[in-house]
C-alpha cells in the first residue's frame, strides 16, 4: 500500500474516470464523455492513474485505449481487510470488558452453610 494509491483516488475527477472505466476499455474521448469531465485535464488525470497502477494504456491505431487494472484495487481491499481484523480484535476486548463489568455487578451466590 503506497501513499500514491490513496492520492490517486483522492481526486473526485479521477474517481469519475475510474467509474467510467468499469465498463471496460475506452478511448480518451469516451472517458471524457462518460465521466462528464473537461477534456483539458483528462490526460494528466489518466497519467496519474497510470503511474499509480490503476489503469493500463495500449495503442490502437491512432487511439490510445485505457482500461482498469485490478492490482491496486485488490491491494486496497486487502489493506482494508487487515484493518477490519484489527478492529474485530478490539471489539473482542470490548466484549470481554463488558462481560467483566457485568460479572462484577452481579452479586456472588452465597455459599451454603455447612
Amino acid at each position, binding site marked *: 500500500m503506497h501513499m*500514491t494509491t490513496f*492520492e490517486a483516488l*483522492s481526486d473526485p475527477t479521477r474517481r469519475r474516470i475510474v467509474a467510467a472505466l468499469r465498463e471496460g476499455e475506452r478511448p480518451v474521448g469516451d472517458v471524457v464523455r462518460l465521466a462528464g469531465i473537461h477534456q483539458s485535464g483528462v490526460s494528466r488525470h489518466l497519467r496519474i492513474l497510470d503511474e499509480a497502477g490503476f489503469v493500463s494504456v495500449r495503442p490502437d491505431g491512432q487511439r490510445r485505449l485505457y482500461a482498469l487494472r485490478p492490482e491496486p484495487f485488490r491491494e486496497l481491499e486487502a489493506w482494508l481487510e487487515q484493518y*477490519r481484523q*484489527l*478492529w474485530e480484535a478490539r471489539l473482542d476486548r470490548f466484549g470481554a470488558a463488558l462481560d467483566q463489568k457485568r460479572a462484577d455487578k452481579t452479586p456472588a451466590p452465597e455459599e451454603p452453610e455447612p
Partner: protein
Amino acid sequence: MTDASPTAAAQAFVVVERTYKAPAEELWALWTTKAGFESWWGPQGFRVEVHTWDARAGGELTYDMIADSPEMVAAMKNMGQPVSQATHGRFGEFRPHARLSLIHVIDFIPGADPYENTIEVDFFPASEATRMVVTIQPHRDPHWTRMSIEGFNGQIKKLDQRFSQG
C-alpha cells in the same frame, strides 16, 4: 501531484459490528466513562492511562497508550517506536445511548502532517441486546497502519487462543 488531498481515506470506511447481550447504556459507558474506556481501549498488549476526560460534544480527551506486556515493549522497541504514546482528541457527536463520534488527532507520525481520524459508533437496541456498529476511517498513513498490523497480529492470535480455550 499538487492536487492530491488526503481525502481518499475518507472514502474508504471499515465497518465492524457486534451484538452484545446488554443494554445500550452499558455499552455507552464503556466508551464514555474514564474507567470504561481504560478497561478495553487499545490493542492487546497495551493499556491506556487517561489524563483528560470531558465526555460531552466537543469535549477533550487525552491519554497515554502504553505498551505493557514484555512482548509488546520489545516489539515497539524493535520497530523504533516509543513504548508510550501521548494521544489526544475530542468527542464529536454525543447522543447518549444512540450515537457517538471520537476524533483523534494523529500528530505523532514522523514526517506526516497532522490529520484527524474519526470513529463513529451507533447503538441500536434490539430486545434484550444492543447492536453496536463502529465505522472507522482507516489511518491513511500506510507506515502507521503497517506497523500497527505487524505489531498487533501476534497479539490477536493470543487473544484468539484465549477465547478458543474459554
